């Protein structure tokens, strides 16, 4: 049984107050909170077990190396990858995408080739491809979405008829909430001979992912958005593809043999992990995934869907409340504007009421341009949020509307 009170009890920060009001944390899209269990696990390693991984002959080094590799297997199982060789630890989703843009790009992208991204990508899934295009003389193409926040799949067929070598698509949009039909997109892309990278930064904590069922070539996510530590993330890549790709950073760990004449690179996954990794972060991530796995993403997803439905219904009762992104399948977030009130004013006033949300361009300027706005406010939920919090949020929005007058600019 999904017990939200029990879950909340595991997150000390949820007990704190902001300006004397109980914290309502609705900025989970930016980063989730961490349960004590994850931090305690990391503390234990920092304080009692620390030693560098893959290097020492000594006891502690072995303990950390084992834990590091156990986390890799936890990630493998979590996303149902075929092998732990396909799990590369990075600093986060951003670094994972950059790794592919660099390494896959180095090997497979040439002049006149095309990279296809969607209009709803986070900057992290745009800019690395632009940099690649600049290096290689390749061309960036964009798959548009309709005003309700749904990708235009007919346009996809037309675009894939070109020289597309790689498609970058966000699994769940961090602005619109749309859960994209990635399986279908992957099928179409593969039929056209293109590889696909799925940006799972916003979906990893909310829905089950099976990389083999999806048949994606790459998948990227960050630990800090799934109750894990900051500074650690994952790149999944199909083994055969990763084998063909050159390393992107050189250093320790990623080598088998170093001679001044020639260096031989290490096997997967270490080939892509130069230098000392954030092994304690990696261990923390493993703990977070075990924690989430224990509750179950099915139960989490169902609970959050209810929350989203409830919040959407309640908020729509408020005159002038405009929701951006109304796709039939959405992850638990709502981007919005209240009348003509500037999102910054909304965010500032909510903050004073103890409610944390995100405002601004949400790292997705093309989405802002699509709607012709300078910014939005976004409430993004996690499994520890409650209906009661949404009620307080709705009340707060009404208060702000009264204070500012809905028509006020």
């Amino acid at each position, binding site marked *: 049984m999904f017990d939200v009170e029990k879950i909340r009890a595991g997150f000390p920060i949820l007990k704190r107050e902001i*300006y004397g009001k109980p914290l309502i944390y609705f900025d989970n899209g930016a980063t989730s909170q961490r349960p004590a269990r994850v931090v305690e696990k990391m503390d234990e390693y920092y304080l009692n077990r620390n030693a560098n991984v893959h290097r020492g002959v000594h006891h502690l080094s072995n303990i950390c190396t084992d834990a590091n590799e156990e986390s890799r297997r936890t990630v493998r199982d979590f996303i149902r990858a075929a092998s732990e060789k396909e799990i590369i630890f990075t600093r986060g989703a951003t670094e994972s995408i950059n790794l592919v843009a660099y390494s896959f790009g180095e090997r497979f992208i040439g002049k006149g080739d095309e990279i296809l991204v969607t209009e709803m990508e986070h900057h992290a899934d745009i800019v690395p491809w632009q940099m690649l295009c600049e290096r290689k003389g390749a061309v960036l193409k964009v798959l548009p979405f309709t005003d309700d926040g749904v990708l235009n799949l007919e346009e996809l067929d037309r675009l894939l008829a070109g020289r597309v070598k790689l498609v970058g698509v966000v699994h769940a949009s961090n602005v619109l909430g749309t859960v994209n039909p990635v399986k279908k997109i992957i099928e179409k892309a593969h039929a056209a001979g293109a590889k696909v990278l799925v940006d799972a930064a916003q979906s990893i904590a909310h829905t089950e992912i099976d990389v083999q069922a999806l048949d994606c070539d790459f998948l990227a996510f960050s630990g800090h958005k799934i109750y894990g530590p900051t500074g650690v993330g994952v790149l999944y890549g199909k083994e055969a593809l990763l084998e063909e790709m050159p390393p992107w950073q050189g250093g320790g760990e990623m080598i088998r043999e170093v001679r001044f004449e020639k260096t031989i690179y290490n096997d997967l996954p270490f080939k892509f992990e130069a230098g000392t990794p954030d092994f304690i972060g990696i261990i923390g991530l493993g703990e977070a995934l075990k924690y989430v796995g224990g509750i179950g993403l099915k139960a989490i997803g169902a609970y959050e869907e209810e929350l989203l439905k409830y919040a959407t219904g309640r908020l729509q009762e408020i005159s002038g409340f405009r929701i951006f992104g109304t796709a039939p399948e959405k992850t638990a977030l709502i981007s919005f504007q209240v009348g003509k*009130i*500037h*999102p*910054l*004013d909304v965010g*500032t*006033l909510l903050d*004073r009421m103890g409610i944390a949300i995100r*405002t*601004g361009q949400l790292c997705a300027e093309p989405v802002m341009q699509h709607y012709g706005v*300078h*910014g939005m406010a976004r409430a993004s939920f996690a499994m520890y949020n409650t209906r009661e919090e949404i009620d307080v949020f709705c009340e707060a929005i009404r208060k702000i509307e009264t*204070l*500012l007058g809905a028509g*006020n*600019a």
Partner: protein
Amino acid sequence: MTIQEKEQEIVEEFAVFDDWMDKYAYLIELGTALPPLDEQYKTDENLIKGCQSRVWFHAELKEGRLWFSADSDAIITKGIAALLIRVFSGEKPQDIAAADLKFIEEIGLSQHLSPTRSNGLLSMVKQIKLYAIALTAGS
């Protein structure tokens, strides 16, 4: 009135509110009342960088004194801009350049002061000072 006296006046005005909501309501009132900035001055040059809302500050030198006007698409930001205009407009560039603002903290809006804050209060003050310093250096 000197810059300091104007600051003191603002502090006294805000002192009557003990509820944060009333403070913000007053800021919003000030923002709403701020005369609109002539469209010709809403240029990229006058746009304050480092702010989530768009804020424009226009400065004019008349008889050795600086006069400011401003606008923003966020009303709280505009209210803060109105306070800054009240404090600095009509002052000598050298006085503006040397001013050490205290009132923001004293009226309990210091959470707007941190350099990472997106509302750009610090950027506004910096821009005002830059205008003043440029003119002081030029004279």
